[in-house]
């Protein structure tokens, strides 16, 4: 577990639009950003067209101009837009913008990067495909566009907990005093590769995603690019703190966690250290296995008929902007930050009936219509889980 660093600024581009406000507004108003694309021109169209949450083309075009003809170019442009927002906020909050006086680290977190740029090219030799690098082209383009010159730069690819792992490493860098601030970038795009992959696992929902719901079917994939600046810096207004972070891997199974959620529970306990958060943004993919596992964990952690625990409310974002894979932890953290700033919680608007088999008292889950102002909202636990037995949690406070 690593402790305490300040969130100096953040920004994002998601299917909800440009900016953290667009993300929060979609969540708070119950807007499901999914749609069914025309997949007929894909290299390998899936048997059933999926519901996905993509960043609108016109938004990408605005940022990227003519340069985003590749996935790498598109992602770099989206990351730059997210960074512009984060930088502006860091100036507003009083943190000095990264410049030569600030030792800056950059960590890029992603699962598949720009894989769509090369993976379907059957004319390329196997040898060249095996030498492909899905991440470096994105980072290089981002650095060229922004002219940032980091003192330390790394790419993390820890499945869907990549952003949590990157943020943990960022806290480690600042605690070790090798840099003053770390810009954690994360992003993943939706394309045939991951759609066909999740379709092969039969994990995609055909209808709207209903996390923790009685009839939940699976996930919808989403696109996002995020930028979160953490570290040292003066803060003038409503500072947000990443109080603690914890990530851990277990060797239970490749695609799912231990059903009882022992590792996620241990991570939650390490991060909260005995404190009870006001709310939880759950990983909540909408798959039967993930949501049942998380319910077990939250039931044990926050299910007691105790005044403090009764106040804990559980919500989620993936019903709205999709599962953004390596960026999902960062998207959830930004949603948490916006909730804390506004002291308002959003509901899981697609879900009206909680799975009756769940052990957590159902009133803990914020289902449709239950969001709204929470004047005493001060802390949110953000949970994440990923393939290969990865788990991550972060506690955000104002």
């Amino acid at each position, binding site marked *: 577990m690593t402790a305490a660093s300040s969130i100096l600024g953040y920004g994002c581009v998601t299917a909800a639009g440009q900016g953290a406000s667009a993300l929060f507004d979609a969540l708070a108003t119950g807007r499901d950003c999914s749609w069914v694309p025309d997949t007929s021109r894909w290299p390998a169209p899936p048997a059933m067209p999926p519901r996905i949450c993509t960043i609108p083309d016109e938004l990408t075009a605005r940022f990227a101009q003519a340069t985003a003809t590749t996935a790498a170019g598109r992602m770099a442009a989206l990351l730059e837009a997210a960074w512009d927002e984060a930088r502006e906020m860091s100036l507003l909050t009083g943190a000095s913008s990264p410049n030569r006086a600030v030792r800056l680290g950059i960590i890029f977190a992603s699962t598949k990067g720009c894989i769509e740029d090369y993976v379907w090219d059957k004319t390329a030799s196997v040898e060249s495909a095996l030498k492909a690098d899905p991440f470096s082209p994105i980072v290089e383009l981002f650095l060229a566009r922004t002219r940032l010159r980091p003192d330390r730069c790394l790419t993390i*690819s820890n499945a869907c907990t990549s952003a949590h792992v990157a943020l943990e490493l960022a806290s480690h860098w600042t605690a070790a005093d090798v840099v003053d601030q770390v810009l954690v970038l994360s992003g993943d795009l939706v394309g045939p590769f991951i759609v066909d992959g999740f379709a092969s696992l039969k994990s995609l929902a055909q209808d709207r995603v209903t996390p923790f719901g009685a009839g939940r079917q699976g996930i919808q994939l989403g696109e996002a690019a995020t930028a979160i600046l953490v570290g040292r810096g003066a803060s003038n207004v409503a500072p947000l703190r990443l109080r603690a972070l914890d990530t851990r891997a277990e060797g239970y199974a490749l695609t799912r966690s231990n059903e009882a959620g022992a590792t996620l529970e241990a991570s939650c306990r390490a991060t909260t250290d005995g404190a009870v958060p006001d709310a939880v943004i759950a990983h909540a993919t909408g798959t039967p296995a993930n949501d049942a596992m998380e319910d077990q964990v939250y039931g044990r952690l926050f299910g007691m008929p105790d005044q403090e625990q009764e106040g804990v409310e559980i919500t989620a974002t993936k019903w709205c902007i999709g599962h953004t894979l390596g960026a999902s932890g960062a998207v959830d953290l930004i949603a948490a930050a916006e909730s804390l700033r506004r002291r308002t919680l959003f509901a899981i608007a697609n879900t009206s009936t909680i799975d009756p088999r769940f052990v957590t008292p159902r009133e803990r889950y914020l289902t449709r219509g239950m969001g709204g102002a929470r004047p005493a909202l001060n802390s949110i636990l953000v949970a994440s889980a990923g393939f290969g037995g*990865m788990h991550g949690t972060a506690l955000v406070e104002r």
Partner: protein
Amino acid sequence: MKPSETFVTELFHTSVQPFESEPTWAGKVPRWSQLDPASAAIAEAWHQWQDRGDLPHDFSPAVFMLAASEGSNRSDCGFARGGAFSPARFVSTLPSVNLSALLQVTGWVGPMYCIQNGPLSLASARTEAELFCRRGKGPVCIFGYETRGDPRVADCRVDVRCLIVGHLKS
């Protein structure tokens, strides 16, 4: 912080696949025969090092790092070019999954960082490991690997390299 405060032990193993017989760790990994070659090689290497006495049976690092210089390219390519999309292939299309079999064999739970900086992955992981150790968060066990061939087509060799980075107590 002085660079001399850490020590590094290196271990090597070359795994040839398909295996001639069922590996001794196979019982702990469901559907082990479907594992990506790198995943199987890492689990096998750990077992071999323990058998040879290179690695104490009770060795448990504080942190694992995977220096994924070749990422999951082999699985990515196999999934996209392999005709019918195979769920068994898709679950290996994340580099961090390459450590999952070892974690199943050892029962280890803890922080794991999958670092993918192209050819610089191992050097980057070592730099990070040394930083962890200097902050008293070691030892760190780094795995790197290089795969040649495809066991579904012909013999495949995976060179596994392990760096154990620790802190020298004064």
